[in-house]
């Protein structure tokens, strides 16, 4: 079962960022080989004002995938809202990945500003994908503010650490069984993406792990495969863990409880 993102069904759960690739040609290659369904694009406001980023945006649009503009680098509600409006105009989409950063070292979301910006944008007709933590209360407030998707971090942006708080992410998944959840940020390896899907998440969003790999397109393809593996595993209803060994072949002739 694939949860829909604001009514849109995606062909798969891979969302790829578009920054930091060695070249746009390699970026396009990474999308093709991974089959990613969504491209996130960050918008610097100074290049939005006079459409100076036009060439790059056209390149993103030519990828033929859903475009999810983001408000990366915004530190205040006002900045994020302005950037979202600019993105809507440029890309002609209501989708916005909302980032309001509160702390520089870990690029930790400012969850207070996030909720406020999410409310302002939702009321204005945006379909907000908020970059949040695994905090259940914040998640609840974001949903109340109008969000229909949540994007908790796996680990700090660009850290490549994978899923840092498995317990928290499991709790989030269990707590909001009907909400599409995307692991956004912190993934370093395809196995992290597989793990996210095994936990029942709907998608993963990553950038650095692919863009900064020696062979970005190859890594992108690896992520695509891992995602698929994780998704299949989730559908296959995995076994439960147990504390004792359980022989997979019956041991005949041995007492049960020796």
């Amino acid at each position: 079962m694939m949860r829909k993102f604001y009514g849109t069904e995606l062909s798969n759960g891979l969302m790829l960022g578009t920054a930091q690739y060695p070249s746009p040609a390699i970026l396009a290659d990474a999308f093709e080989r991974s089959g990613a369904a969504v491209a996130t694009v960050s918008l610097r406001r100074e290049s939005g004002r006079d459409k100076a980023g036009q060439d790059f945006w056209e390149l993103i649009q030519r990828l033929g995938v859903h475009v999810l503009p983001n408000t990366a680098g915004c530190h205040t509600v006002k900045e994020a809202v302005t950037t979202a409006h600019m993105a809507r105009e440029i890309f002609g989409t209501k989708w916005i990945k909302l980032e309001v950063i509160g702390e520089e070292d870990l690029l930790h979301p400012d969850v207070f500003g996030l909720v406020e910006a999410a409310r302002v944008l939702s009321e204005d007709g945006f379909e907000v994908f908020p970059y949040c933590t695994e905090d259940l209360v914040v998640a609840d407030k974001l949903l109340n503010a109008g969000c229909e998707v949540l994007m908790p971090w796996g680990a700090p942006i660009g850290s490549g650490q994978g899923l840092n708080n498995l317990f928290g992410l499991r709790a989030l998944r269990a707590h909001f069984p009907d909400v599409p959840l995307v692991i956004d940020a912190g993934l370093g390896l395809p196995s992290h993406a597989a793990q996210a899907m095994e936990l029942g998440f709907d998608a993963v969003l990553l950038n650095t792990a692919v863009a900064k790999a020696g062979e970005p397109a190859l890594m992108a393809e690896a992520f695509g495969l891992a995602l698929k593996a994780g998704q299949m595993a989730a559908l296959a209803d995995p076994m439960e863990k147990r504390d004792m060994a359980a022989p997979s072949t019956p041991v005949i002739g041995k007492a049960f409880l020796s």
Partner: protein
Amino acid sequence: MSLKISIIGGGVAGLCVARELVDRGADITLYERGDGIGKHACSWWAGGMLAPYCEGETAEDIVVQLGLKAADWWQKSVGKGAKSGRKGAEKAQKVRKNGTLVVSLARDHADLQRFTRRTKYFTRLDADEISRLEPDLKDRFSKGLFFENEAHLSPREVMMTLRDLLVFEGVKFIRDEVEPELIAKDGLTIDCRGLAAKDNLADLRGVKGEMLMLSCLDVNISRPVRLLHPRIPIYIVPRGDGIYMLGATMIESSGGKYATARSVLELLSAAYALNPAFGEAEILEIGVDSRPAFPDNIPRVGKNGNVISINGLYRHGFLLAPAMAQMVAAHIFDNKSLEMKHEYSA
């Protein structure tokens, strides 16, 4: 009678092509925008690093290969021993072959590690070795890489010198903005206009760069230093006499006349991290321009009728223009194909 060729564009590409073609005996007219060489060419704002191995971190192998002989080309063309144009030209800033130092702060050692894996021909340095190489970076970095076989030059001086030499050798410089198609009616034309040629090259785009020129007599750094960072990698290139070029941002944008406050803040804080004495530096200039690039960030030479175009030198103008110019000269005079081959690095 010598072959008459027009070159449009007085940036690093146009000048290098002129150099190669004059050496083959061609009669060159070079059209340049504005008031002669200067701010109109994005090469004016370049770092001037001849660092093929470092660029190999992200650039394709052909970029590394084509750039290997750039330092020698520049040395021969404008350094000591180059034919002198006017008085003083022989004193032109020489190409300095004293390598590149690459460092990162301790928290970004992962970036240094990645750089190590992606590049070749360096030696690893510890804190003592770094401070022996650059005493003013003493105790600031525990690990670094030294690319001994790299060089740097001062773009503006080198461009002015090359221009003077070309004038001396009979190249006619005309200050006019002209269309290649019109000029080409009168003979072979080389289009080296960079981003101004965008109308003819659909997939050419601009990549905005911002840079600073600092004057800081308190810091003495003798070679380009690259400070790696996950978001804001910077380099600083000494221009001599306490002048440093600090660069450069890479933003997917073709416009903007001005640098943003954020970019300047980021560049300056990186310089400050390199040595806090940069806090007292005077800011001489804040420069902005856009580099012309194709989607693969590799330059292209193309021919359409009477027009040969060189474009997309991206952040590799001084590194690759010599090889591109040699390629064009070999095409015109030796009938070689215009395909990008490593042979031009030889």
